[in-house]
C-alpha cells in the first residue's frame, strides 16, 4: 500500500493505521531532505496551494508554508483579517474565487469545527485541515506521534498523558484519535471543568492527580491554557492551576524514571511548564517543530499525488 485512503486530511478520525504509517515513512524521507545542504525537491512544481487562515497562527502557518516551498509548490497566503470576509463574503464564495485562479489544494484553519469537512463537500480541491475550532488539528497529532516514535522507537504500547485544557483543545482530540489508532494507552489529566463529560467514551482514562499521571506515563503532552477560548472562569486562578497541573523540574526529578515532555506551543512559560522543564533534555518541543515540516511535506506530497492531471 502506498496511497492514502483519503483525498483530504480533515481529521485523524478519517484515517486508518496504514495511512499513519505511510505518512510516517514518507516523512522519514523528507526529514532526510530537509537536513541536506539544499533542502528542496521539485516534486510539486505544477501544484498551487492556498493557505487560508481565518484564525491567528504563527507556527502552523510558517510550517505549512515552508513544507509547501520545500516541495516546490506555488503558494498563496490569505488571512481573514485583511480580506473580503470582513465585507460579508461566505466561505464557499471565498474559496471558489480562489480556486478559479487554478489552485489545487487548500490548507485551512478556521474557528468553526467542521469547516474543513463542509468545504471538502462543496469545492473541488484537496483540503488539509490546519485546525478547525475545538475539533481537530490532524497534522499536529501526526507530528506529535512521529516525535514519540522518533524518541521512543514506537508508539504502540506507550503510556501517554495529555495534560491541561482538554475541553477546548483540538490538539487533544486529534492526539487521542492518533494515539489510540496506533495502540498507545492514553490518559487525560486536568481540572474537572476542563475535561469533557464523555471523554472516556473515546477509550481514554481520566486522572485528576498530576503526580499519579506522571508516574504512570512515558510521555506527557502539556497543553496550553487557552485563555482566548475561555469566556467564563474554569479554574480560580492561573496560580492555582500551575500549582495543581503545572510541571516543574522538582516534580520531574522526584519521579523514578525519565519521562518525555511535549508541548504543541505556544508555551505559557511558568503556567503549564516552567522554563527549566521547557529547556531541559527531556523536552522534545523543538524536535516537534522540526518534525512538523517533514510531516506536513509528507501529507501534502501524498495528497497531491492523488490529484489527477
Amino acid at each position, binding site marked *: 500500500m*502506498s*496511497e492514502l485512503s483519503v483525498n483530504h486530511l480533515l481529521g485523524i478520525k478519517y484515517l486508518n493505521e496504514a495511512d499513519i504509517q505511510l505518512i510516517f515513512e*514518507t516523512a*522519514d*524521507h523528507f526529514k*532526510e*531532505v530537509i537536513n*541536506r*545542504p*539544499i*533542502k*528542496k*525537491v*521539485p*516534486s*510539486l512544481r*505544477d501544484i498551487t496551494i492556498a493557505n487560508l487562515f481565518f484564525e491567528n497562527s504563527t507556527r502552523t502557518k510558517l510550517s505549512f508554508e515552508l513544507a509547501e516551498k520545500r*516541495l516546490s509548490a506555488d503558494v498563496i497566503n490569505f488571512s481573514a483579517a485583511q480580506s473580503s470576509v470582513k465585507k460579508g463574503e461566505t466561505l464557499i464564495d471565498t474559496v471558489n474565487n480562489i480556486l478559479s485562479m487554478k489552485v489545487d489544494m487548500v490548507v485551512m484553519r478556521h474557528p468553526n469545527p467542521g469547516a474543513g469537512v463542509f468545504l471538502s463537500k462543496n469545492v473541488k480541491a484537496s483540503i488539509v485541515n490546519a485546525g478547525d475550532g475545538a475539533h481537530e488539528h490532524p497534522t499536529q497529532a501526526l507530528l506529535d506521534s512521529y516525535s514519540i516514535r522518533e524518541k521512543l522507537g514506537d508508539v504502540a504500547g506507550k503510556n501517554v498523558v495529555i495534560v491541561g485544557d482538554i475541553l477546548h483543545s483540538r490538539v487533544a482530540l486529534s492526539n487521542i484519535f492518533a494515539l489510540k489508532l496506533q495502540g498507545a494507552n492514553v490518559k487525560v489529566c486536568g481540572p474537572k471543568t476542563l475535561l469533557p463529560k464523555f471523554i472516556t467514551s473515546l477509550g481514554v482514562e481520566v486522572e485528576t492527580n498530576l503526580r499519579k499521571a506522571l508516574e504512570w506515563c512515558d510521555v506527557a503532552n502539556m497543553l496550553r491554557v487557552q485563555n482566548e477560548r475561555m469566556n467564563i472562569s474554569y479554574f480560580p486562578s492561573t496560580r492555582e492551576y500551575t500549582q495543581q497541573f503545572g510541571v516543574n523540574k522538582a516534580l520531574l526529578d522526584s519521579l523514578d524514571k525519565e519521562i518525555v515532555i511535549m508541548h504543541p506551543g505556544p508555551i505559557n512559560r511558568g503556567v503549564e511548564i516552567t522554563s527549566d522543564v521547557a529547556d531541559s533534555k527531556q523536552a522534545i518541543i523543538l524536535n516537534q517543530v522540526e518534525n512538523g515540516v517533514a510531516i506536513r511535506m509528507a501529507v501534502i*506530497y*501524498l495528497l*497531491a*499525488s*492523488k*490529484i*489527477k*492531471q
Partner: protein
Amino acid sequence: MSQKVLLSEKEINIILHRLACQLIENHLDFKNTVLIGIQPRGVFLAERLKKLLLEEYAIPDVKLGYLDITFYRDDFRRGDKPLEANKTKIDFLVEDKKVVFVDDVLYTGRSIRAALTAIQSFGRPFEIELLTLIDRRFSRHLPIQPDYRGRQVDAINQEKVKVMWKEQEGEDKVYLINK
C-alpha cells in the same frame, strides 16, 4: 511470458572485474571520487563494485552513497501507481568531487536525468560519470549515454531487462523477459 538469460553468473563476474579496472584507469586511488548507487536497484551493483575494488584491487575506503530520485522524477501524478520513495544515504558532500552514478539498467535515461538534478542538493560535483551494467540501445528519450557499460543490449519496448543479485534474489543473472 517467456524469458531468456542474457548474462550468466560467470559473465557478470567477468564484466564486474572489467568495470572495476576501467574505473581504476580513470580514478586511480579514488581519493577524490565517490560512487553513487541509484535507488533502488543501482545500490547492489555499487556495493559489489566497492567490494571488488577493496578485495581484488586493494583500494580501501571508496566512498559510496545511495541516491533516491523519487522526488525528482518527471512523471509525478502521471502514472497509475503512486511513486514509492527509497532511502537516500549520502553522508559526505560531493562538492568538487568526481561522481560516478551506478545503475543496473540504462533505458530511457529519465532516471539519470532526475539523478543529475538530485545530486545538486549535495553540492556541485567536479564532474559526473555514468556506469551501467546493461545499456539498452536505441531506447533513449534523452541525450544521456554511459561512460562505462557492462553489456549493450537490443531490446524492444515490450521486453524488460531484469538484473538479479545474489543479495536480493539469490542468484547473479540478467534476464530478458518478454511480457
